[in-house]
C-alpha cells in the first residue's frame, strides 16, 4: 500500500497515522499523534502535573511575596515579569500569568507560536521543574494550539452574526449556553450526545425559520441567499462542532476505534483487488485520469483532518468530483451511478482513509441532517457509506472470483498474477492475459521494461563514449602522422637567396630613427 501511494506522490505512511504509543489504534495530530485513549491518559497525567506545578508556583510566589512584603519587589519581577497582580491579591499570584496569557493571545492573534513559546519557555517561569519538561512541551501546547483555532472560529462566528444584528446576538447566546451545557454531559453515550446536538440544531432552525417567515410577511424585498436559514445553520454547526470536536469525536463510550482498526486491517488484506475486478471504468494509463485518481485519494484522506462535519463532507464531495472527472475522461461521457460507486470503492481501497468509521459516525451524528439526507453532499456521503459497507461485506462473488480464488488471495497464498500463470487458466499464462488481469503487476512489468530499455540505451551510450574516447586518444597520433606524411611529401627547402634578401631588409632597419617615447608636459 505504502509503495503504491508513494508512487502516486502522496507521502502518507501508515505508521505515521498510528498512535505513537504503539497501541495499534489511529493517532491524530490534534492529539499529538496519540489515539483518543492514550491521549486522554497522557493529558490527564500532564494536567495533574500542571496543576501541581501551578500550585507549587503559587505557594512559592506567595512565600516570596510575604518575605518581600515590606521591601521592594525588584528582584522578583525580574524572574517573573508578568506578575503585576500580587500587590493587590497576593493569594492569587498564580493566576497572574494565565490571565495575562489570555490577554496576550487575543492581542497577538496571528503570532500563536511566539506567544506559546514565550509563555512556556523556562525564562518566564520562576520555578522550572525538571520532571515536567516532557509533559510541558506536549499536552499544554496542544490545548493552546487547539484553542487558537477555536478562537479564530469563534471570531469568524461573531463577525458573521454581527450582520444579523439582534437575532445574531441571540444566536450567539444560545450557542454559548449550549456548549457550556454540553461540557457537563461528558458521560452521555454517543447517541445521546448526537441527540442533544440534533435537538439543538432543530430548535435553532425552527426559531430562525419563524423569524424569517415573520420577516417575509413584513417585507416584499427579495431575500438574499446569505440570510437563508441554511447559511446561518452552517455557521452554527461550524462554531459548535469546532468546540465540541475533541469530546465527541470517536468517544470512549463507543467502539468506533475498534471498527476503524478492523476496517483498516480489512482494506490492507484486500490489497490485491484490482481495478478490473471491481469493473471500474477509469483508465489510469491516461495521465489526466491518474491525476484525478491521486487527487481523489488525497481528498478522502484529508477528511480526517477536518473538525466541522460539513468540512468533512466537503472533502468527500471534492473526492467524488475528481472521480467523476476521471470516469468522464475515460469513457468520454458523463459518469452514472453504475460507474461511480465501484470507482469510489476502488478509491477507498487505495486510500485506506484514516479512521474511516469514526469519521462516518461523527458526520452522521453531528452534521446538520438536511445536509446528509438530501443535497449533493448528502448523495456523495451516502455513496461513501455504501462503499464502506460494501468493503466490509466484500466476497468472492462481488469480485467475480471463485470462493477458492478469493480465499487464496486473502490468505496471501496466491496473488492474481501467480494464479493466472498457474494451471487454472493455462491459456492466459502469457503476457497479454497477465496484463489484463492485474494492473499493478502490469505497471511493474511496464516499469521493468522501461528500466531494461533505459539500461540498453545507457550501454549504447557507454559504448559510444568509449569509442569517442579512443578516437580522441588516437587523434593526436593521427594528426602527427599526417603532418609527418605531408612533411615527407613536401620537405622543407631553405632558399639562401630569399634569406639574404630578407637579411638585407633587416640591415636597412638599423638606419631607422628610434621609436617615439611619450612625453610629459608639466601642467
Amino acid at each position, binding site marked *: 500500500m505504502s509503495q503504491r501511494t508513494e508512487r502516486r506522490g502522496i507521502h502518507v505512511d501508515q505508521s505515521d497515522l498510528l498512535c505513537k504509543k504503539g497501541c495499534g489504534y489511529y493517532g491524530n495530530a490534534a492529539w499529538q499523534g496519540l489515539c483518543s485513549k492514550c491521549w486522554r491518559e497522557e493529558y490527564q497525567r500532564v494536567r495533574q502535573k500542571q496543576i501541581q506545578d501551578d500550585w507549587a508556583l503559587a505557594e512559592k510566589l506567595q512565600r516570596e511575596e510575604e518575605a518581600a512584603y515590606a521591601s521592594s519587589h525588584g528582584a522578583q519581577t525580574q524572574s517573573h515579569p508578568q506578575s503585576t497582580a500580587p500587590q493587590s491579591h497576593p493569594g492569587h499570584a498564580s493566576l497572574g500569568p494565565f490571565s495575562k496569557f489570555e490577554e496576550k493571545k487575543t492581542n497577538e492573534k496571528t503570532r500563536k507560536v511566539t506567544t506559546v513559546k514565550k509563555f512556556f519557555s523556562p525564562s518566564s517561569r520562576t520555578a522550572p521543574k525538571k520532571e515536567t519538561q516532557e509533559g510541558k512541551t506536549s499536552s499544554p501546547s496542544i490545548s493552546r494550539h487547539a484553542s487558537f483555532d477555536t478562537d479564530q472560529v469563534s471570531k469568524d462566528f461573531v463577525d458573521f452574526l454581527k450582520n444579523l444584528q439582534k437575532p445574531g446576538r441571540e444566536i450567539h447566546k444560545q450557542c454559548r449556553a449550549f456548549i457550556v451545557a454540553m461540557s457537563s454531559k461528558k458521560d452521555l453515550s454517543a447517541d445521546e450526545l448526537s441527540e442533544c446536538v440534533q435537538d439543538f440544531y432543530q430548535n435553532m432552525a425552527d426559531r430562525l*425559520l419563524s423569524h*424569517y417567515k415573520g420577516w*417575509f410577511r413584513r417585507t416584499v424585498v*427579495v*431575500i*438574499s*441567499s446569505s440570510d*437563508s*436559514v*441554511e447559511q446561518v445553520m452552517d455557521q452554527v454547526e461550524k462554531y459548535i462542532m469546532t468546540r465540541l470536536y475533541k469530546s465527541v469525536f470517536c468517544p470512549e463510550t463507543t467502539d468506533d476505534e475498534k471498527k476503524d482498526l478492523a476496517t483498516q486491517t480489512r482494506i490492507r488484506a484486500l490489497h490485491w483487488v484490482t481495478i478490473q475486478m471491481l*469493473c471500474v471504468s477509469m483508465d489510469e494509463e491516461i495521465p489526466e485520469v491518474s491525476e484525478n485518481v491521486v487527487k481523489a485519494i488525497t481528498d478522502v484522506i484529508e477528511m480526517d483532518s477536518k473538525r466541522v462535519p460539513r468540512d468533512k463532507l466537503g472533502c468527500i464531495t471534492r473526492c467524488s*468530483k475528481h472521480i*467523476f*472527472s476521471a*470516469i*468522464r475522461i475515460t469513457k468520454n461521457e*458523463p*459518469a*452514472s*451511478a*453504475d*460507474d*461511480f*460507486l*465501484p470507482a469510489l470503492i476502488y478509491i477507498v481501497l487505495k486510500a485506506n482513509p484514516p479512521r474511516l468509521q469514526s469519521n462516518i459516525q461523527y458526520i452522521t451524528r453531528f452534521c446538520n441532517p*438536511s445536509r446528509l*439526507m*438530501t*443535497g*449533493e453532499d448528502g*448523495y*456523495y456521503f*451516502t455513496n461513501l*457509506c*455504501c462503499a464502506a*459497507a*460494501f468493503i466490509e*461485506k466484500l466476497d468472492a*462473488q*462481488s469480485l467475480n472470483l471463485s470462493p477458492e480464488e478469493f480465499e487464496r488471495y486473502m490468505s496471501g497464498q496466491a496473488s492474481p498474477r501467480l494464479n493466472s500463470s498457474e494451471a487454472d487458466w493455462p491459456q492466459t499464462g502469457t503476457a497479454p492475459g497477465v496484463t489484463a488481469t492485474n494492473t499493478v503487476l502490469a505497471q511493474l512489468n511496464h516499469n521493468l521494461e522501461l528500466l531494461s530499455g533505459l539500461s540498453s540505451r545507457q550501454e549504447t551510450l557507454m559504448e559510444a563514449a568509449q569509442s569517442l574516447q579512443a578516437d580522441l586518444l588516437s587523434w593526436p597520433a593521427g594528426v602527427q602522422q599526417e603532418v609527418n606524411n605531408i612533411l615527407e611529401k613536401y620537405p622543407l627547402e631553405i632558399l639562401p637567396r630569399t634569406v639574404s634578401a630578407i637579411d638585407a631588409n633587416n640591415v636597412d632597419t638599423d638606419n631607422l630613427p628610434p621609436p617615439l617615447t611619450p612625453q610629459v608636459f608639466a601642467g
Partner: protein
Amino acid sequence: MGENLRGGAQLQNDTLRKSLRTLKVKLVLLGSSGVGKSSLALRFSKDEFRRTSPTVGCAYLTRVVHLRNVTLRLEIWDTAGQEKYHSVTPLYYRGAQAALLVYDISKRETFIRAQVWLKELEKQYIPGSTVIWLVGNKGDLATHRQVSVEEGQSLANDRGLFFTEASALSGDQINELLLAIAHRVYECIGVQQEGLSEWKETPLVDLRNRDKSSRLASCC
C-alpha cells in the same frame, strides 16, 4: 432526445410569486442494471440540469417543479443497479420522499427483481412516509413486451403503489409521471410540513427555470 418542453412566458409573474416557498424532495431511482434508471434521471432533469460544475456526472440531478401553491425541488438520486450492490442500497433510500421502482417491460427478470426491491423497501418503511412508484420503462419496446400492463397495474394495486408505463427513449409519459409524483409527494407528505425541509433560494434561479415550470404548472 425527442420532444422538448416549450414554455409559455405568460405565466412568469405567477411563477415569481410562487417561488418563495420551495420544498426539497429526495427521489431515489431503484431497479436492476440496464432498465433505464440513468436515462430516466436525465429525462427528468432535462433542460433543468443545473450543473454546479461541468465535470459532474449524471448520478445526482435536480429538477424544479412548480405546483399551484408550492415549488418542489426534486433531487434525483440515481443508484448503482448491479446486483452485487443490493445489500448496500437501503442506505440510499433513507429519508427519501419518493422511490421509483423501475423495471424494463421487455425483460421479465427485471420485473421479478423489482418485487425483491419492494420487499426490501417495505421492510424499512412505514407506509405513507415514502411515495413508492412502480415504473415500467421502455414502453417503446411494446413488440418485445414480456410484462403486460395488467401485471404491472395489479402488482401496484396489491401493494398500494402508484404505477406508470413510460419511455425514457421517446419521452412518452415522462412529464406526466414527474408531475404526478410531485403532486403525490406534496399531498402525502408535504401537507405534514415537517416531512419536507424548506429550501430558500434566490428567485433569480427560478427565473432561469420558469419556462418549463410554468408549462408544467399549467398542465395540471
